[in-house]
């Protein structure tokens, strides 16, 4: 099926990787920056093009569009680079493109040491992210995720902040365990389905005809739940996240917390839920309680207690993953659709927060919120953007997060009343820590420590190099917040597809 025609998905995956290869092969310095812009802009452009065209193009089975397949020599194992986009992967593909562009611009504008290597790793990560969400082949889905994951470890280890070596090591070991468990689960699906193929479309067809036994489904879903759970920082396997994000350089944290972490949730929704419905039903209650009490409540309180800004953002992202797990546990179309929306919204808002935290750090020279204060007088744009990001994180209407959280809460109400109370109280918690952070950083009197820093180098408002990526992210948050239908139509179509698929046969 491989053709030489225009394949936006392959271009989106290959462009950053090709640029990374060019940089590795020794491009002259003057070209590196230009090439890097190209490497980050191309996937974003392709993602938006795919988004605009998606509703119009012809769909193959399971709602996949733009499907192409390239043989890689392992046809006997049923492995091949098969790319395609359906309604669930479309929002995440677009998310990866946009956050990648923002993180890329931010990285290029920053004056990091050993810039070439930094951009190279970031480009590899970007290529991996685009590939993860564009893969129909489960093997390549995992492969691209790992491709994006490895640069994170190296970036934390080399460019990280405090405790970088320890953080890199902890992240590596934690996430490797998670990845290995989920790999085992994917191999189990591959092997047990009898499809002899890693192609998700084939596996879905095979399992639709002959579902797995309930006991098998329970075991495999358990493997995937724990594997993906570690990757998505499900409580109590979350401790790598604040540690790693606290130490990671901002662009790496943006891409990891914003996009890469969604891999686990995406895997649950795209692979585990449709293939293993009985397994999902078995585990859903435990998952819902863990997510509600552990991620939302416990981590919510932990977040409130943080003084370090970056740690707080890291913990808040762990907390928001709790909502996503609740939506998955509820399992209805509404709940899961809400999770997909939340993934996009949270990806945009958390990467915006990481970006802005670094901007704050450049002005205050500390992440300790006790040692800040009154920054708004000098940096009105920065504080407005930060406030917007905080509002988005709380889930105010008008921002994309609202359309993620509300459907989840509604779906959860049908699932369990008391869990809904716990979950909704979480929004209060996030309002408390979010607004308190804004108050501590931007308003009130300057702390004595900040007074000294400000006297030495007076804080200036953010320039265009920081504004551009921040504006891109805010614009995307508002666009989805005001016009959620731009994604929700495709998501709905994909989630209600199983019935359509039966009639199609």
């Amino acid at each position: 099926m491989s053709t030489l025609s225009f394949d936006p998905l392959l271009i989106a995956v290959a462009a950053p990787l090709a640029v990374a290869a060019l940089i590795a092969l020794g491009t002259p310095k003057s070209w590196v920056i230009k090439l890097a812009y190209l490497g980050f802009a191309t996937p974003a452009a392709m993602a938006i093009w795919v988004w605009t065209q998606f509703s119009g193009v012809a769909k193959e089975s399971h709602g996949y569009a733009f499907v192409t397949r390239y043989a890689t020599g392992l046809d006997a194992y049923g492995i091949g680079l098969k790319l395609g986009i359906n309604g669930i992967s479309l929002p995440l593909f677009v998310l990866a493109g946009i956050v990648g562009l923002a993180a890329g611009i931010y990285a290029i504008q920053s004056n990091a040491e050993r810039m070439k290597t930094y951009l190279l790793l970031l480009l590899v990560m970007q290529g991996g992210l685009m590939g993860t969400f564009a893969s129909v082949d489960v093997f390549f889905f995992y492969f691209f995720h790992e491709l994006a994951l490895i640069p994170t470890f190296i970036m934390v280890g080399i460019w990280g902040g405090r405790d970088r070596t320890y953080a890199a090591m902890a992240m590596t070991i934690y996430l490797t365990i998670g990845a290995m468990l989920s790999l085992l689960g994917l191999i189990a699906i591959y092997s047990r389905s009898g499809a002899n193929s890693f192609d998700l479309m084939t596996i879905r067809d095979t399992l639709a005809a002959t579902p797995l036994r309930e006991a098998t489904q329970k075991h495999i879903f358990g493997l995937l739940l724990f594997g993906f759970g570690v990757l998505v920082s499900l409580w109590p396997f979350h401790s790598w996240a604040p540690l790693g994000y606290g130490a990671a350089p901002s662009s790496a944290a943006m891409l990891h917390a914003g996009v890469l972490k969604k891999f686990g949730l995406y895997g649950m929704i795209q692979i585990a839920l449709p293939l293993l419905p009985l397994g999902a039903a078995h585990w859903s209650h435990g998952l819902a309680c863990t997510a509600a009490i552990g991620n939302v409540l416990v981590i919510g309180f932990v977040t409130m207690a943080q003084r370090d800004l970056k740690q707080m953002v890291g913990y808040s992202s762990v907390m928001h993953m709790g909502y996503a797990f609740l939506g998955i546990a509820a399992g209805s179309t509404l709940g899961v659709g809400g999770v997909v929306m939340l993934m996009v919204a949270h990806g945009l808002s958390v990467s915006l927060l990481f970006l802005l935290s670094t901007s704050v750090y450049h002005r205050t020279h500390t992440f300790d919120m006790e040692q800040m204060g009154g920054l708004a007088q000098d940096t009105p744009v920065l504080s407005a953007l930060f406030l917007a990001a905080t509002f988005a994180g709380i889930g105010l209407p008008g921002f994309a997060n609202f359309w993620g959280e509300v459907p989840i809460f509604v779906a959860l109400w049908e699932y369990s009343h008391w869990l809904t109370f716990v979950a909704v109280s979480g929004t209060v918690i996030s309002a408390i820590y979010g607004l308190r952070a804004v108050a501590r950083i931007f308003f009130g009197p300057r702390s004595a420590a900040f007074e000294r820093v400000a006297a030495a180098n007076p804080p200036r408002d953010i320039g265009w190099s920081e504004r551009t990526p921040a504006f891109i992210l805010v614009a995307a948050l508002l666009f989805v917040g005001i016009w959620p239908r731009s994604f929700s139509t495709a998501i709905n179509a994909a989630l209600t597809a199983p019935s359509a698929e039966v009639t199609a046969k």
Partner: protein
Amino acid sequence: MDFSTLRELAAGNTWGSILPEILLGVLALALLVLEIILPKEAHRRIPMISIVAQLGILGYVLSTFHTTYGDSFNGMVAQTPTGQLFRVFFILCSVLVSILARTSLSRQVVPRVEFYNIVLVVTGAAMLLVQSRNFIMLFVTLETMTIGLYILVSYFRSNAGTLEAGLKYLVMGALSSALLLFGIVLLYGVAGSPVLPGTTPNAMQFAALNSFLAANPGNFTAAAGIVLVLSGLAFKIGGFPFQIWVPDVYQGAPTPVTAFLAVASKAAGFVVLVSLVKVFAPYQWLVSPVLCAMAAATILFGNLAALKQHNVKRLIGLSGVSHAGFILLAVASIGTVPSAEGSVYFYLFVYLIASFAVFGVMTALAGADDTNQELGDYAGLGRRSPFLSGVLACGLGSLAGIPPFAGFMGKLFVFVAAFRAGHYGLLVVAIVGVVVSIYYYFGWIRAAFFTDEPGASETQPGAATTCSTDIVLRIALALLAAGSIILGFYQGPLGHLVSRQ
């Protein structure tokens, strides 16, 4: 003159089927002759001559890759696709060892040409070993190989550590040969017993032994023989509990020889093990549990013992033990899952590429004392030599089994095979092993990339401070690094070859 006799002779001639091995032997002799006839200043060209000639033989093997398969020498050796694959494998090993040796030997005062000569003989023996279909052939080729390695291991004879390694390898090798021989004798003896059904006087032949075993599933003497044969092979591959020689010998041997031991000797052991597991198929009830237990113990031992190592040669040796465990996982699945065999071969190829990348960097960085290579010597390598550190990262990433490197594909196929065979417990052990291995590979990467050079005062007098490397070694390392990445997502013909079987 009547040509019909000659024609008959020519028709019955099977020497052509082992032409690559003969060419290697001729080349080995030619090197010695060249040393005599060439003027002294031209002697330093001999290694390059050897490398180029080996590449020529490699080209010949590749051009005749799809030859007519079948038995020759009355069933002593058989030409199979696997045999062809491993001819390529061993010649590649030999070329790379020769390239490494050019750098490594230049730092020592030792005879040069004999080293390349012995490498060629060992390679030829290994190539015949994987094609042998008869225990006599197997034992003779295995001994030819091992005796060559005895000499190579203690080649830097002025170094106490190297001599100790040589002695240990000699004693352990002799013990393993004795075990293997004892096992062969038991099998031959019991198969020749006239009171048993299916008795055969020809039990040295694998096929005959296989049918005898099929007729007697559960004979105690045969079972004892099988266990002894497996033990003898476990020495070669470094499987638990016969791995105990590995760290000392790997540390003491010259780095190119360590690479040769780690890759060629281990691969030869595995290919023979795979063909014998198929011969012993009627004793699946015995072979499978033995291999499973060995796999689990080998993975755990290799990884846990590697955790605390600071000497990189010991570290890579113990990590090699754990790799043997991963491959055993697939070997243990061969009885029930046909695809497992291909996964063993793929893993070995990937291991060849990744290991030589790492060994090449080690050779380039080794100081005058070849046995003393510490993790600390790698501090700041990322700044000192981006090229070498990049190659090291590719090699270690592949060994650790991280995508996009080829090692991940190797592990994936092995895990798929083990899963299909239903070895769930072993898979859990394997996953624990992988996670532990990430820790020590990460430690190495950390030393190379995340730490800076230890000040101006050189604390390690043995460590080479300059990173100027020989151009041939650089080319080889670049190719190995590229191979580690490309095989990770595009397996191409090799993928077809190993997944077909």
